[in-house]
Structure formats: C-alpha cells, structure tokens
C-alpha cells in the first residue's frame, strides 16, 4: 500500500534483486521475496529468536530489522551452513545430540550459536548459556541444544 524500494539482498553469497515496501521485515523478505524458507518466524516481537540470521557477522533477529536496512550486507541463513553435502559442525552436532524435535526453532538456534562462536570461539559455558537463553525452544528442554552447541564449538575450532 506504500511505495516500494528496489534493493539487493545478498543471502549466502547470492544476490537477490527485490522490490520491497520500506516496512517489510528482513524475515519476510528472506522468506517470501527470496524464497529461503528455512528461516522461521515465531513471534515477530523479537522475543523467540526463531528468525535469527547472521548479518555482517552478527546474529540478528530478522523480524526486528527492515529488509532495506540489510541491503548491501552479507546475510547468512541456515541454507548456507552446509557446504554442498558436507554439513556444518553445528548441523551435525544438533543431529548427534538430539538438539531438535519439531525443528521449527532449530535454524534460529544454529545461526545464533554459529554467529557467536565465529566471533568468540573460546566463549565460556556460562556465557554461552546466556547467549542461548535469548532464543526459545518448546520441545527439547534445552539440555540437548546446549550439548550440541558445546560439541560444535569444539569441532569448529579444529
């Protein structure tokens, strides 16, 4: 209903030329305009973290960022974690440690943990617990998510 702006979103290294309303969230743009539906929307209030993606190296809640703010930045989503058939250590660890049940919050948790570990590979367990407390999961009770992230942290340092 309002004017649209032409922008380019760079997601997992690929450019998407799209036209969006200024009010369009990054989450909606990633999912609907760029067709990358692995990023999920759980609350649109910035509370649950299901929509977490990495923008210029920082985990962000893509429901709280406008698509136009992300133009020209490097966006990474769950679809970009694996290199071909080779899973990212975080993906492998979530499978190995049963860190997911329904799988809806999983992409957000993985992007959050990957973003933080790339920046801070030696983060303490206590600080990582603080980080993981920023996202919500309703199925796992978190214990296996924490285990998975710790295991992945070790692998990522190799």
């Amino acid at each position, binding site marked *: 209903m309002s004017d649209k702006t032409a922008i380019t979103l760079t997601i997992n290294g690929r450019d998407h030329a799209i036209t969006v309303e200024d009010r369009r969230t990054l989450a909606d743009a990633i999912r609907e305009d760029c067709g990358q539906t*692995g990023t999920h929307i759980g609350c649109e209030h910035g509370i649950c973290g299901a929509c977490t993606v990495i923008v210029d190296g920082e985990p962000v809640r893509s429901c709280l960022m406008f698509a136009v703010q992300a133009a020209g930045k490097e966006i990474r989503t769950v679809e970009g974690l694996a290199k071909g058939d080779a899973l990212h250590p975080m993906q492998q660890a979530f499978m190995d440690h049963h860190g997911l049940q329904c799988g809806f919050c999983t992409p957000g948790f993985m992007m959050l943990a990957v973003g933080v570990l790339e920046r801070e590979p030696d983060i303490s367990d206590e600080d990582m617990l603080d980080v993981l407390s920023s996202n919500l999961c309703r199925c796992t009770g978190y214990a296996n998510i924490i285990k998975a992230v710790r295991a992945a942290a070790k692998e990522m340092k190799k």
Partner: protein
Amino acid sequence: MTAPTKGSGLKWVGRAIRRLEDPALVTGQGRFTADLPAVHWVRFVRSSIAAGKLGKIEAPKGTVVITAADLKGVKKITPMLHKFNYKPVGQPILAETQVRFVGEPIAAVVAATEEDAEDIADLVEVSIDETAPLIDARDALAPGAPPVHADVPGNVILKGEFKTADFDTVWKSAAKVVRMDARSHRQNATPMEARAGHAAYDISTGRVTLTCTTQMPHLMRTAIADVLGMPESDLRVVAPDVGGGFGQKMSLCAEYVVLVWLARKLKSSVAWTEDRRENLIASFHSRDQYLALEGAFDGNAKLLALRADVLANIGAYSCFPTTAGMEPLMAMAEMPGPYDVQQYECLARGVLTNTCTMAAYRGVSRPTITFTLERLMDKAATAFALDPVDIRRRNLIDKFPYTSAIGLVYDEATYKETLEMAVKAINLPAFRARQQAARAKGRHLGIGFATFSERTGYGSPAFAARGMEITPGWETVILTVDPSGFVEARIGASPHGQGLRTTLAQIIADEIGVTPDVIKVVHGDTDRAPYGWGTFASRSLVISGGASLIAAQKVRAKLIKIASHMLEAAPGDILLENGAAKVAGTDRSVTIAKMAREAYTQTHRFKGEIEPGLTETGSYDPPGTFSNACHVAIVEVDIDTGRTTVEKFLVAEDAGKIINPMIADGQVQGGIAQGIGNALLEEIIYDESGGILTANLADYMPPTAHEIPPIELHHLETMSTESITKAKGLGEGGCIGAPAAIVNAINDALSPFGVEIDEIPATPQRIRAALRATGKCA
C-alpha cells in the same frame, strides 16, 4: 546408514539411533505450512470485546470482507458428548449475533498480500453492544450469572458425578481428614510455530488441499467436510512439518473452515498465518481449574477415601472433537493417581465463560490433578508428622493389575520402585543436612517429590467411556515393500517432533530384517495415509507402533512364504536378516528386494498359493497402559524477591520398553521444561473486562535455557502386557509431574515461615504475597 550411537544388541529396537527426520530439518529443508505461497491472504478481524451483541460490520469500499452473513449453510462446530448431562453448544465459524471472548473471529479480510489484509482489517469497523463478561469460573456459577450461551442457563456445560457405595461409612471411620484447595491458572501450550493454514482449489478435480498445522489431519477432514456439507473425498488435508503442538493443534479451528470455504468460493489458493498475539489470545487455552481435594486417612496415614470437586473453566465454546469434557472428566477419572484408595467421590464440572476456548495442553488435567494430589500427600505427611517419602510408601499401589475405585485397570508398574530409586539417587539425608546449613545462613532450599501414573496409549474404549460422539482410539498402518525393495509405512498417526519416523522404522526393521534407512514412514496426508486419529495423548508409539508391528509381522510371514518357494526350503528354516532371507545352516539366500520384485512381477511362479503384491495392513486398538515416574525437584526460594530457582531435577521413570533411548530422554526433558514453565512462569492473565494482559511471549514467559536445571534421568522398564511392543507412552509425563514436585519443593523451602503455596504458577508475586501475609518478612 544411521549409525548406532548408543545401546547394544543386534536389534534396532532399543538403540539410540539418530533420527531420520533430522537431515531436512537442520538444513532448512523442512516444509512448514507458512512456507507455501498463495494467491490470496486472509486476516481475521477479531472481537476486542469479551461479551456483547454484535451489530454492524463496516468494511472499506472495494475490499473483500467475509462475515457470518456470507457463510449461509455452513454449520456450527458442535461437538457432542452423550453423558454427564452435557449441553451441546455451537460455535459459529464467524461470530453471528453475539461475541463471546476477546479474539473471537468476526470477519475474514481477503487481499493479495498479508500486509494489505492487515491494513484493511484495521479499517473494518465493528459495533458491539457490550455486556458484562464472565471471566472466572466461580463467577459464572454464581446465581443470576448471565448465560454465555442462552441455551445453557447456569453456564454448567457438563457435570460428572461419582461416588462409591461405601464412601460415607468409610469417610466417617477416618482418623484424619486433610484438605487441599488448589488453583491452577490458565495456560497456553505455545508451540513455537503458531497456527497456519493454506487451502488450494484444484480446478481439474474440484478438490481442495488444506495444508495446516494440525496433530490430526483425518479428523480435520471429517470435521470440515461436515461443517461445510461437502464430500469428504473432495478435501485433502496435509500436515507437513508441524512446529510442535502439545495439544493445541488437535482441535478444529474455525479459521481453517473459512480457508476451505474461501478456496472453493474463489477457486484459488488462500492462506492465513497466525501471529503470536492471535495465538496467545485466540487459539486455545487450558488448565484453568479450581480443585478441592479432601483425603480421609486412618491412624497409620493410609488413605481410605478421596473426595474431589473439580471446576474447569472451559471458555466460550466446546472444542472439537474432544469437547469441553476433556479436562473435568479426565480429572474425575484419574484423580486418585498412583495411590491405593477404594473409596472415591467426585463432582467434576465444566463451566462456560467469556474466555478463549479450553483445549488440550500436554498432560491435559494430569498436571493439575497431580499437583493437587501431591500437595495433599505432603500436607497429610505434615499432619501425621511423617516424611513425604514415608506417606507415599504407605499408599502407593503395589499389586497389579489394580482396579481403581472408578474402574480403571492399571497394568503392572513400578510406583514404589521408582520412588525408592529417586530417593536413593537424590541422597535425601545429605540434602536435609545441606538444607539445615543453608537455613542457618538465611538461604531457603527445598525438596519436593511427585509420584504419578500416566495413562497412555489408550484406545477407543477409554474415549467411549466419556460418551464421545467422535470416539478416537485405534490406529492403522499400511506396510508395503514395493517392487524396488524399499519399504513404505503409511500411518494414521501424525507426528510433529516425536521422532516417529525413526522409532516406527526401528520396530519394522527388526521384524522384516532390513535396516531402518530403507523404511519411509509416510504421515500427515489424508490422500496417502490411512484414516487415523493423529498424534496426541502419549499414544502414537504404543498404538501406531503396535499397528506397525502387526503389519510387519504379516509382511514377515509373507516374505517367509515367498522365500520358502524361491529357496525351496521349509518355512521354519527361513531366517530374515540383513535385507535377505536365508536358509538356516546353509549359504542359500535371496534378497528382500528380489523377493519383492517377484511378488509383483513373477506371481505365476507361486502357483496361486501366494497373493500378488507385498502390502499388509495392521490395526491396533489397545485398552491403555500406565507409565509411571517419581520426580524430585530441589529449589531455592529467594524470600526477598519471591524468585524460585530450580537447582536440580531428578526423574526415575518407567515407560516400559524403550524403543529409542535418545528420543525417549528427549521427550522427558522437553516435558519437564514445560512443567517447570507451568509451575513457575506461564500464565494467561485476563483483566476484569476480559482483555488479555499476556499477549506476547515476554509476558507469557515460556522458560528459556536459564530456567532449566540439569535433569538427571533414571529408567526402569516394566514390560507391559497391555502393549504388544511392550512400550508405554511417555510424551506427557515430564509435564505431569514437574509442577507438583516443584511446588512441593517451594513449600518445603518455605516451611519455616508457615506459608503454603497451593497455586500454579507459583510466581514471585504469589510467593511474596504469601510471605508478606505472615508478617515474618518485609
């Protein structure tokens, strides 16, 4: 192959293999309802008023806004119980003359994008002649309370009553009567994926495919076809990846009916994705109960008789298919829990109010009745100057099968054994010493126990006992070895995080001698799966697992017959393993893939002795089996802030044969986390006018990783005679025991102050208010 990561033995059952579900979900290739594109998007205009007469609805010119007036011929959602003085009430798909709760759908705006639909919805003007709402169940019962539905004066939608013949005599003989008045506040199951629906019309067939976040796709098909008066064969319901349910997604939503109606009307695709605010105010709620429980004990603290009064606030309508009877009637049937008590009296009522409709949430009534009963046992322990463990030892059932006062038959379980296991593992004397030392320093630690039974895997007789017009129960599995040698199990259950694709594959793999990775479990599509009841009530592994085993036994028998022909050996000499049939003691073998190919393409070789093809069907409708557990919580209560920290949580549980230990532990851990949320944090709060004050996740407060302590799990495996796989259900147990254990622990911590907390959630505000009332704290 999914390599075993834990466990032993040659069989697949019992091994912690990785889940077959996971590769898609960790790579962003899961497919959820909201991922589908649509031509039209819907936004619902919802009532902002809790009670009133609906007047004019004015939409901006040139917009498409559907109201009840458009839905001519569409029936109301009217589930039925044929017992307990149930008063059927109808829920209009869109509000007709009345609005009955804040969030009730009044109109559906249809536009080209979600944003446009939201903009238009904001401009729709609805006039409502507001009347005084009823929010609390007790107010709805008061003499002269206005009826929520004109045809249910007094607002009591159902009333269950039960009393054993000798109740009064035994009651009078009691040495002590202990009373517990419990309040369980309203909660929302809050799956991470809120509701979503997508209905697409197919021009060539006239059929509609409804993709939606449901736990019971076949029931949605039956119900929606019925409400719309359309042939059920013209509707396909698909539950793709579903982002959690916890009971909230097992009832029919009026919104889905609107989507199917619109898809047929517009001959196009129409989608709706619920936002989180809608989910919190207008999906389904649960657990809003007052429970009064009295226990009559003899001089040795043996429970002689129980008297219960259950008052459940069921909201504005009755949910389909389980009805408003779900919470009160489950409370009535299962209140005595794991204790031997043969005299029982119960009054259980469901009361209509101007609040969101009650439906299932993990455990349904058992978290509240376990909380009430376990608080009663702790109060009785105090009254008899006994340890909480001792009073449970004196009263837990230890002879099986046990028939409860109301007539439920408990199969073999380990109520006492799990209690002793937990007491030993937690080291109670060491805790008591630590508690004393902490108290001396002004820190308040407490320990709480909860022992409970969890009725799981129950088939149609259990639901029929409630008088349900729609009586769920059985499951069917169609198992096919196709000509390529791959195996497909089509199931009526509808898992959404429980890992059933993996565990059913493990059961089938052992029976027919293949590896789980060649077995595809197909579910959540009414065109592909046989009719079934879906996934809820800790039933799927028991019932769909049982049906899988039956189907696999038939396929096994047929494979042996085929192998006997092909290998010219006696059937008794054939072994099925590693994807092949072998003649015992020889090197003669034939692969299952080759046998399958011949079963379709070389049938002439079997001389009419073997039916063509390799598909078998198994159905299972068991009576039900009781899992059990003892939960122990250690908490610290900060008396200055009222904040409770759960320091440790320990579980000793028995769910019979464990098919996949990794998945089983995951279910228990997840359930406990929800139970901790239920005990301490989660609450839907209405204001006096019927508006909801907790309409986002920061206010509703599901627990984060910070609130969940380390959980220590111990298992026993009692092989049930009531489950052909020997597995009992365990999906709800974590949530059932945790609130009781935690609130008992809070009360233990606060015992020096003489306060008792008998409400869930036990929020800091409630704890502080109770402490302040003693005058012993500032």
